[in-house]
């Protein structure tokens, strides 16, 4: 008990001024909770058949989320094929659990995820598995967000590494110049302009009748955009590897790709784990921008659900729910990356 008192005295009430600030914060937080808790919990409606019940209650209408849950998770995916989408979510969860162990973080992890994403896509599309075909334009909700984010991460990482290697290459000035211009141009323009390019400009360059699904075009935009930011992160890692390592590898007679693959990259990439995961988090968050080219990802689906005329006026609940989902994903990931970096760096020491 006295420990708590000493801690409080030192951290909350060291001087009168600080004490007043502490009290002000406590009352402010209290005021927010006083207003938020009745709305979100005490007066909230959890189950209801229609929106009238919600409108009378005056609290949050979580019944709305419950009603629209399938739509928010799966978008316009056909109801009778939903088990496939559930399976995709299960695969994703399995992948997350597998990646949770620090031991899994080797190059093979990227292969595992590649396999997972390919099977997710096969499953969702279905043609090759002998299931009814579901076009990519029907994929939506959380499932679409996962597909966008995971393919984006898997392909933008190697792309970013290649760009960074090209930029660091002193002997091939043409390659270097191309990489520098790609990185600097893409980093100088907003992501929306790339999405517009993918959705509005690219079709003009294709022969008529030849259609690339919008999903694929959006994924390519995500990969290019995110790859350029990753390239800068990787460049930081490359710069942090000492010159002696390069020279040692060369004196052993290793070729360029062996030098990079066996000596430099393993060191460079593990030095920048935290910023790399940071880039993955931004990629995940940035996928929400596809709503602007009218795709129904998690945010797009939630918005569409909130504009259903039978359930009008519950956008607030939808946004709070989404914020919780995104926050849970990203915050966990960023916390986890700290532990991962520690694990991997300590393993590499001996």
């Amino acid at each position, binding site marked *: 008990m006295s420990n708590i008192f000493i801690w409080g005295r030192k*951290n*909350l009430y*060291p001087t009168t001024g*600080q004490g007043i*600030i*502490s009290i002000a*914060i*406590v009352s402010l*937080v209290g005021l927010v909770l006083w207003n938020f808790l009745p709305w979100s919990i005490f007066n909230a409606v959890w189950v209801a058949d229609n929106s009238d019940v919600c409108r009378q209650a005056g609290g949050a209408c979580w019944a709305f989320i419950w009603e629209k849950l399938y739509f928010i998770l799966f978008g316009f995916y056909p109801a009778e094929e939903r088990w496939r989408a559930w399976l995709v979510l299960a695969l994703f969860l399995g992948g997350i659990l597998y990646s949770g162990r620090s031991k899994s973080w080797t190059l093979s992890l990227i292969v595992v995820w590649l396999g997972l994403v390919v099977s997710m896509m096969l499953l969702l599309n279905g043609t090759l598995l002998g299931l009814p075909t579901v076009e990519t334009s029907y994929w939506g909700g959380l499932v679409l967000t996962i597909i966008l984010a995971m393919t984006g991460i898997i392909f933008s990482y190697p792309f970013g590494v290649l760009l960074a290697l090209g930029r660091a290459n002193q002997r091939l000035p043409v390659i270097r110049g191309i990489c520098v211009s790609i990185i600097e*141009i893409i*980093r*100088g*323009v*907003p*992501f*929306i*302009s790339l999405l*517009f*390019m993918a959705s*509005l*400009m690219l*079709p*003009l*360059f*294709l*022969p*008529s009748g030849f259609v690339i699904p919008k999903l694929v075009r959006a994924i390519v935009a995500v990969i290019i955009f995110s790859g350029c930011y990753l390239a800068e992160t990787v460049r930081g890692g490359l710069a942090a590897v000492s010159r002696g390592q390069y020279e040692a590898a060369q004196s052993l007679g290793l070729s360029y790709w062996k030098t990079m693959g066996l000596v430099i990259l393993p060191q460079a990439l593990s030095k920048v784990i935290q910023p790399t995961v940071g880039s993955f*988090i931004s990629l995940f*968050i*940035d996928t*929400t*921008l596809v*709503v*602007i080219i009218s795709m129904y990802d998690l*945010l797009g689906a939630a*918005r569409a659900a909130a504009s259903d005329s039978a359930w009008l*006026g519950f*956008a*607030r609940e939808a*946004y709070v729910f*989404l*914020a919780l989902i*995104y*926050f849970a*994903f*990203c*915050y966990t990931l*960023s916390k986890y990356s700290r532990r991962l970096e520690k694990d991997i760096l300590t393993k590499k020491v001996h």
Partner: protein
Amino acid sequence: MIVGIVLFFGLARQNLVDNLEQRNIATGFGFLANEASFIVSETVIDYEPSDTYGRVFLVGMMNTIKVAVLGSISAILLGTFVGILLLSKNWLLRNICYSYVNLVRNTPLILQLLFWYMLLTEFLPSIYDSVSFLGTVFFTNRGFYISSIVIHSSYYWSLGTMFLGFGFAYFFNRYANRHHDRTGRELPAFTINFTIIIILTLIPWAIAGFPLNISVPVFVTPDFLGGSNISPEFLAIYLGLTLYTATFIAEVVRAGIVAIPKGQVEAGSSIGLTPMKLLKLVILPQAIRIIIPPLTNQILNLFKNSTLAVAIGYPDFVSIANTTLNQTGQAIEAITAIMIFYLSVSLLVSLFMNWFNHKMRLVER
């Protein structure tokens, strides 16, 4: 391989020509001289639907710059404040700030913008029963109606003389520094400069007889007359960008302060500097060098993120280029215009910052 690349581009070009012909889309930037004929809800410069696309592009750029500049200023202020609080010894204060930073950084900006826009349009009273603050600001779901000062011609003169004052301050500071180096005595440069600037600014106003005409918004059904309106679209994007970017700036500022060796502060206090002087002469000059480059990046991010305005209907440059694209079908030109605008501003700011860093760098003796 080269043949392959040439073939690929040749094919793409042929497809483009065919497609454009088929859809009857013009090429080139000639459309900039055509009549835009769409309405823009808010503008910084005068604009009529009968004006050209070139003019409406300019309107969009001004709107983007308006929100980017105002957003940057408030994000830097809030971010610096929060960044310092992140280092507070008060557990509650520190953790409240960390909660804010983590919450905002881990949710999509576009979601935040939609959320603010929804709050501003759905949860504020309608224009008929607006809530007012002291009868000068009215909060409605169509935005805030605020009192505004009617511009008098003498104000422009004041602006001019104020710049004269800044010019004087620049030279006087240089003189004061030299004086300090030579004699070791400090001139009250700040007080003198401040006074001179104020006096110079006031002179034209005083000559004109202190004209001050405040226009207060008055509700005359069905709208407010007088004053000026801040639209909910602008408020949402301004508020969203400020709150979002401030969390990143807070982290930058915190890292900048932490990076200063403790010995510097101790050395400063041991020669008897007051806390204010310590901050001004020891901590800030060193922290600024560390803070400026990442801060610039954050400002550029804010500038690029302002394009999300299109999601809530604020007429920024992207939104206007998008409307133009839909009207004319000239996707290539519109998207090129977007890219060139953002790229050139980004490059200009980067160049300026490189120059600035070069100037600010530590000169080792």
